[in-house]
């Protein structure tokens, strides 16, 4: 859990994903399209993968990946990110992190 919390604040936009997860890739593409380059953590390549998965689930994610953190706060998974973007509330949130 600590690792997750630490990693999630490493950068403005942090995405926890798995190398095989294509929806995580879709979320990544979306942020890139908005001008943000998120930090990607492929937890399946991390030795503590199981613990991280459990931690992410405990934080409220229905699925461990993709888990999106903006400004260190959990925003949610693909559904939440897409909903926010369509309701125009995603861009204001990532504005400070646009390069």
């Amino acid at each position, binding site marked *: 859990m600590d690792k997750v919390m630490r990693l999630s604040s490493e950068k403005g936009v942090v995405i926890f994903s798995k190398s095989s997860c*294509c929806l995580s*890739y879709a979320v990544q593409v979306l942020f890139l*399209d908005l001008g943000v380059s998120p930090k990607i953590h492929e937890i399946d390549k991390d030795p503590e993968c199981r613990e991280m998965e459990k931690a992410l689930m405990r934080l409220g994610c229905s699925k461990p990946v993709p888990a999106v953190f903006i400004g260190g706060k959990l925003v949610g998974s693909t559904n939440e990110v897409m909903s926010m973007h*369509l*309701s125009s509330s995603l861009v204001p949130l990532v504005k400070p992190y646009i390069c």
Partner: protein
Amino acid sequence: MNTTSTHFVPPRRFEIYETTLNQVSMWEESFKNNGGIFTPNSIIIPTDAKLDSLSEDTSHGTPHKFDQEASTSRHPDKTQRRLAQNREAARKSRLRKKAYVQQLETSRLKLIHLEQELDRARQQGFYEGNRVDTNALGFSDKMSSGIVAFEMEYGHWVEEQNRQISELRTVLQGQVSDVELRLLVDNAMKHYFQLFRMKSAAAKIDVFYIMSGMWKTSAERFFMWIGGFRPSELLKVIDKLVFHPWLVLLPHFDPLMDQQVLDVCNLRQSCQQAEDAVSQGMEKLQHTLADSVAAGNLGEGSYIPQITCAMERLEALVSFVNQADHLRHETLQQMHRILTTRQAARGLLALGEYFQRLRALSSSWATRQREPT
């Protein structure tokens, strides 16, 4: 294919004693021609012709007897013999008729049964016809019954959709209160959301089926994107509400306010971005799936691990179908938020009719192709 009616033409009264021998040969011929069995075709074609010429002996009343008496007086022996022969022939004819009718009945029941099976098979037909990979073991009954159920439910969904569109059209042409209109709009929205729920359940049963779009008409299938219409397509349809000046001529026209126009533009952009992102995710899924299938040495004939790995990847396809529907859901929701009730009603009518036109295009095209050149 029309079923034959069980209403037999009541036998007409006419003398049989001179035509009886002809009848017997008719029956014999009929039996021979059909190889002793009655096929559906032979049920339909000869029925009326054959039965018309049949009659029961008891249907003959006084006139017949009168003629009998007339001929008896002149050549009693000959007449007696002829009458006996006729009676015998008539009896045989009746027996044959009975047998024929019984065969007709059996065949008719068989025909009804076959038609029912055909209907059922036709419903599954699009589903089964597409499954070139099935064998007796691979084709689970649960899958097919779940998908057949979905197809039937979808049929009802389309009917209800058409009804709602007609209602919207009628109501918007006249005077309608905002309250009533809001109800219609809410129902239309709920109806779409219901479809997404149905699709989600069906995708769990067979995601390839949903992806194939076999439950839609051909033109709709042409424009498909991950198991349904493109969310951006939805916004193109309501474009006309926003940017066409001729709309001023419509009754109760309420133009979009500047803020609304801005919101719609923003929605269109974010919708396109979301769609692109999910499309790229799908491409990646296709690549990784293909890689899984092709992994290892191709040609050695053993590939169970590759199939196992590919199966795991395939689970992700269900998530994609759900995500695509989520985008459709959210786009509809946002459109509903941005527009006024009246504008939303017109937008939903436009969207509904757009799909109706696609379905009409599909049937027109199909009919055109069937015409002989």
